[in-house]
């Protein structure tokens, strides 16, 4: 058996082991779906970032850089700053408000914040539609990657690859998903940096890389892309940067990670870890694509730049680990999507719709059942691969991001934001993205959808029922306005006051015994 297949199976067994290990820990629905809100900064940072990075980073990104040169890094710039925006803007406030509202799912969070059942219906429909497209895309990517890298036939590749993800998500819930994300995140960053260092060294350093590129075609180094094909295309550049810089704020499977943090105070350290991981990981695959122009000038399939470089630079077993890193990127995203699907079905539709008296065990069972059903149906559709399926996928990210970005953001940052504004924002923002993508304006669909979504939120919130005073009080508390003073500070000021009190007492005593002073 080839070494890379042995390494892959050892990795799969490891992931299954993590799932089994966490199986007993996930007792309640809050444990199963949010890790008991007990995730530390390091785990939160890695699970947040690996969920956001899919297999595109290892295949599509380097292929783009191979084609257009340094211009491709505009996509990396937005991605690399996305973690900062997401955690700094949402982290602490969303963590506090979600616990105050006692909610487990992002849809439940929106419904309770905006105090409207209609929000629940619309948000559930968009989430299920978006997740379905996203999951299917990642299933197809997992199957095709396994087929491409390991020469497996597509159907068995899908069943094995997705089967492993299904297993550890099904048995271990959020704990297993988060811890496998940590392992996957470490494999991803180590693999990509290892290949990058050796590749740049092989070329003779960064300066030599650019000199050799310029000798082939100087426009590879241009900010406008090869052959200056994007000259003056500011809209394309703005969309490339913004889609990932602010888009993650609107993705339910990403923002749920804030709700699972062990405390609001964990956000700052999470931000630091996430930023460091991002800077180490995100730029590297694109630069490897550029290295491929020099080292692999005649490559048949541009998406195979990283695997080819891995086999060129490393012995078989290490190269096999790099291939495993590609699977890791896909698996971390799929697991988060599956778990959120289970959460939306079991909490938003089952417990809060069909059976309000459901016990915790029944809710966890329903979540597991829906993960299993979605997995089996997804594998079947991916194997059949009906024509047009990829069209669905193109819509998924943009529609979800444009629908939810403003409602999630304004939920904690704008007290006046109400249900009418949130509904208008979801329908018009997502709708604009959908229509523009369908009409072939995909490059600017995100930008337009985001603008419409924000305007709809502002205008819509001028109408309808106002935010209740109770909710305003909770939003203020989530923003730490009128918050209680930290105990450490109280102790410090008490000590300070105590010494002042002592001095005053001494003064009075002196006056009593010595009235002349």
């Amino acid at each position: 058996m080839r070494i890379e297949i042995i390494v892959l199976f050892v990795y799969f067994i490891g992931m299954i082991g993590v799932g089994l290990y966490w199986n007993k820990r996930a007792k309640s629905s809050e444990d199963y779906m949010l890790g008991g809100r007990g995730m530390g900064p390091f785990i939160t940072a890695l699970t947040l970032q690996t969920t956001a990075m899919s297999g595109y980073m290892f295949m599509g990104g380097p292929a783009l850089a191979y084609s257009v040169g340094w211009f491709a890094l505009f996509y990396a710039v937005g991605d690399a700053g996305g973690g900062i925006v997401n955690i700094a803007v949402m982290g602490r406030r969303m963590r506090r408000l979600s616990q105050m509202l006692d909610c487990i799912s992002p849809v439940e969070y929106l419904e309770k914040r905006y105090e409207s059942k209609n929000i629940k219906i619309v948000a559930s429909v968009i989430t299920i539609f978006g997740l379905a497209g996203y999951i299917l895309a990642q299933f197809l990517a997992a199957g095709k990657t396994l087929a491409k890298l390991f020469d497996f036939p597509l159907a068995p590749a899908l069943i094995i690859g997705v089967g492993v993800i299904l297993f550890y998500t099904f048995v271990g819930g959020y704990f297993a998903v988060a811890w496998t994300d940590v392992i996957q995140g470490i494999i991803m960053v180590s693999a990509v940096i290892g290949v990058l260092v050796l590749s740049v060294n092989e070329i003779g350093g960064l300066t030599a890389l650019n000199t050799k590129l310029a000798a082939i075609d100087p426009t590879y180094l241009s900010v406008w892309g090869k052959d200056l094909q994007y000259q003056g295309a500011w809209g394309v550049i703005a969309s490339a940067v913004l889609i990932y810089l602010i888009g993650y704020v609107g993705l339910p499977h990403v923002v749920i990670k804030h709700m699972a943090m062990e405390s609001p105070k964990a956000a700052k350290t999470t931000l630091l870890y996430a930023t460091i991981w991002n800077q180490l990981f995100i730029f590297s695959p694109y630069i490897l694509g550029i290295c491929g122009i020099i080292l692999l000038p005649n490559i048949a399939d541009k998406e195979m730049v990283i695997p080819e470089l891995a086999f060129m630079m490393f012995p078989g077993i290490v190269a096999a680990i790099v291939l495993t890193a590609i699977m890791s990127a896909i698996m971390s995203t799929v697991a988060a999507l599956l778990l959120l699907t289970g959460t939306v079905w079991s909490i938003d539709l089952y417990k809060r719709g069909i059976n309000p008296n459901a016990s915790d065990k029944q809710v966890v069972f329903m979540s597991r059942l829906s993960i299993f059903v979605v997995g089996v149906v997804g594998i079947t559709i991916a194997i059949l691969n009906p024509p047009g399926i990829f069209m669905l996928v193109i819509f998924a990210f943009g529609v979800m991001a444009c629908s939810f970005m403003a409602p999630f953001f304004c939920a904690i940052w704008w007290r006046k934001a109400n249900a009418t504004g949130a509904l208008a924002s979801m329908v018009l923002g997502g709708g604009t993205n959908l229509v523009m993508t369908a009409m072939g304006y995909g490059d600017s669909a995100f930008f337009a959808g985001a603008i419409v979504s924000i305007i709809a939120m502002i205008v819509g919130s001028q109408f309808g029922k106002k935010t209740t005073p109770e909710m305003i009080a909770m939003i203020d508390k989530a923003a730490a306005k009128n918050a209680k003073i930290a105990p450490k500070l109280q102790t410090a000021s008490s000590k300070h006051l105590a010494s002042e009190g002592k001095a005053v007492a001494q003064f009075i005593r002196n006056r009593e015994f010595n009235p002349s002073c």
Partner: protein
Amino acid sequence: MIFGMPTISFLAFLSWPLTFTVTALIIYYFMAKQDALTDDSEFEGEVKH
């Protein structure tokens, strides 16, 4: 030219890792200051059942 590439290209593509790291450190500093003034004890630790 920086590292063999036009300065504008270097600034557009390769200055960001440092920029984002410094930004994260500054934000960390301000968040730490805010956290020190806030009592978040009711939101800390795992939720017990």
